[in-house]
């Protein structure tokens, strides 16, 4: 193995795989290093895969990738203790030749993506943890050290796709520590059922159609957080995540939230008699735009979760990981072709490419959301409860006249938030955060 590469990529998640694939495909010599025994062994996702980001890298992925189901129906449920108020959107238009969203299981998916990276010509080593960056006398990053015996591995540029904990970059002082208010802890179970049962319970036509449900309200027990229930081919992914700072305040164990969710009357029948074959936990960066660290310097670039690229409002992460990975790789490839060094000044083009893409536009759009939710937790509890109460009085047929019912419903809303002024302010804040 030659000891000097055009690029070293740390990590074989969606960000690292996208970066390594694009550079190798363009003819660069690439070394990719992953600490898991296989790619995906350490990785967790809901998981919804957004096709567009992957299609731009591997157009024919649908023929090969281990996909579970394509999403034909989206549900959003607002839970209180015993109810859910829901929005369902199902369309036959989602049964298209090139569906836009799929459910996946990350371990097999990452293994497949990593196999494509090898096919593209990159050298890939697993079972190996990168322990630090190597710098030259001018403080430029020129390679990495690993927990394997041997000399440091050298390259013109190191692409850090090391995920949310990002120890390598953190220890090297490239970015600050994670703030508990800017990171969520999520737990998830993969619950197995037969293919037929999944189809029956979710009204699905075939083995390829799927439903995804986003859960809000009581699922987070008053904390800033959400839950999800996604259908895979013969299993259901059920999970919940909340800000770590909120877990610290409430002292509620994350797995207790998951137990509550499994027992919720709206969820329990969907997973009944299922067999849990895995319980996992992972952090999600939720700091948004303002938490994005420095993304490039002399000889290094940051992609994916390590750079805080998650849009929590839309539950996007893997697509941002793939897109940042691709744009970083394209930057390096262009510099190579132009015969330019991977200096901080030249790598700044990566940031420019991000600014022009949907990535930074979306990150900036929701800039205010993390702060607003953190400081207004009632938005996630008061309203779901008030809505549930309103639905109850609306649907129950009794001897109360309809006008009196409407008055009572409005009164309950006002009471729930202590007056119309507060409700107006809440609406304003949310509208601003969404603008």
């Amino acid at each position: 193995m030659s000891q000097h590469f055009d690029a070293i990529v740390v990590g074989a998640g969606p960000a690292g795989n996208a970066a390594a694939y694009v550079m190798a495909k363009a003819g660069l010599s690439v070394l990719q290093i992953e600490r898991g025994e296989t790619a995906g062994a350490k990785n967790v996702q809901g998981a919804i895969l957004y096709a567009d980001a992957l299609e731009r890298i591997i157009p024919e992925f649908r023929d090969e990738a281990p996909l579970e189901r394509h999403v034909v129906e989206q549900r959003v449920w607002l839970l209180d203790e015993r109810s859910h108020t829901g929005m369902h959107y199902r369309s036959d238009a989602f049964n298209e030749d090139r569906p836009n969203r799929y459910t996946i299981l990350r371990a097999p998916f990452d293994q497949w993506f990593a196999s494509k990276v090898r096919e593209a010509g990159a050298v890939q080593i697993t079972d190996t943890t990168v322990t630090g960056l190597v710098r030259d006398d001018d403080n430029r990053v020129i390679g990495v050290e690993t927990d394997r015996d041997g000399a440091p591995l050298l390259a013109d540029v190191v692409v850090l796709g090391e995920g949310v904990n990002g120890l390598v970059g953190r220890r090297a002082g490239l970015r600050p520590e994670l703030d508990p208010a800017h990171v969520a802890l999520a737990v998830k179970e993969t619950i197995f059922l037969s293919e037929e049962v999944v189809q029956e319970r979710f009204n699905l036509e075939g083995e390829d159609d799927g439903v995804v449900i986003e859960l809000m309200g009581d699922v987070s027990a008053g904390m800033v957080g959400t839950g999800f229930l996604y259908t895979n081919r013969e299993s259901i992914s059920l999970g919940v995540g909340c800000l770590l700072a909120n877990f610290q305040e409430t002292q509620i164990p994350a797995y207790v939230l998951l137990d509550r969710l499994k027992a919720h009357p709206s969820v329990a029948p969907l997973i009944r008699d299922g067999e849990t074959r895995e319980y996992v936990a992972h952090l999600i960066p939720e700091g948004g735009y303002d938490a994005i660290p420095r993304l490039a310097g002399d000889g290094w670039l940051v992609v994916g979760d390590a750079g805080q690229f998650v849009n929590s409002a839309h539950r996007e992460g893997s697509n941002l990981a793939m897109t940042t990975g691709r744009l970083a790789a394209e930057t390096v490839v262009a510099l190579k072709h132009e015969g330019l060094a991977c200096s901080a000044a030249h790598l700044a083009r990566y940031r420019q490419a991000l600014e022009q893409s949907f990535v930074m536009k979306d990150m900036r759009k929701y800039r205010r959301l993390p702060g607003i939710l953190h400081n207004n937790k009632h938005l996630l509890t008061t309203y779901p409860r008030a809505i549930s109460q309103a639905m109850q009085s609306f649907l129950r047929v009794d001897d109360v006249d309809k006008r009196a019912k409407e008055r009572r419903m409005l009164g309950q809303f006002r009471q729930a938030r202590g007056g119309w002024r507060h409700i107006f302010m809440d609406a304003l804040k949310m509208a601003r955060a969404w603008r």
Partner: protein
Amino acid sequence: MTSSNDVPVPTQRMEERLYTNRYLVDEGHPHVRLRRRAIDSDELKSLVRLCPAGCYSKVERGRVELSLDGCMECGTCRVVCQATGEIEWSYPRGGFGVAFKFG
């Protein structure tokens, strides 16, 4: 269902919850270590409830103990105790630790 005010209790033992997970234990090389102070900080104590794998427990005289069985390498304890310096956290050596089958 419990209200958010009182802290509810788990319905399943942690060993059962983690039973189906796969690990390759690196005997003699714990990847997380406690650097004890005279008194355990509130942050460290909170990990008894916060660690999703139940690796932290309170034993005799209220001191917090760490047993890495079942650790999913999430990093929660690392982030929570970064300011107190009571935890030394690194990844397991390459190939060791948790190996998710589905993720």
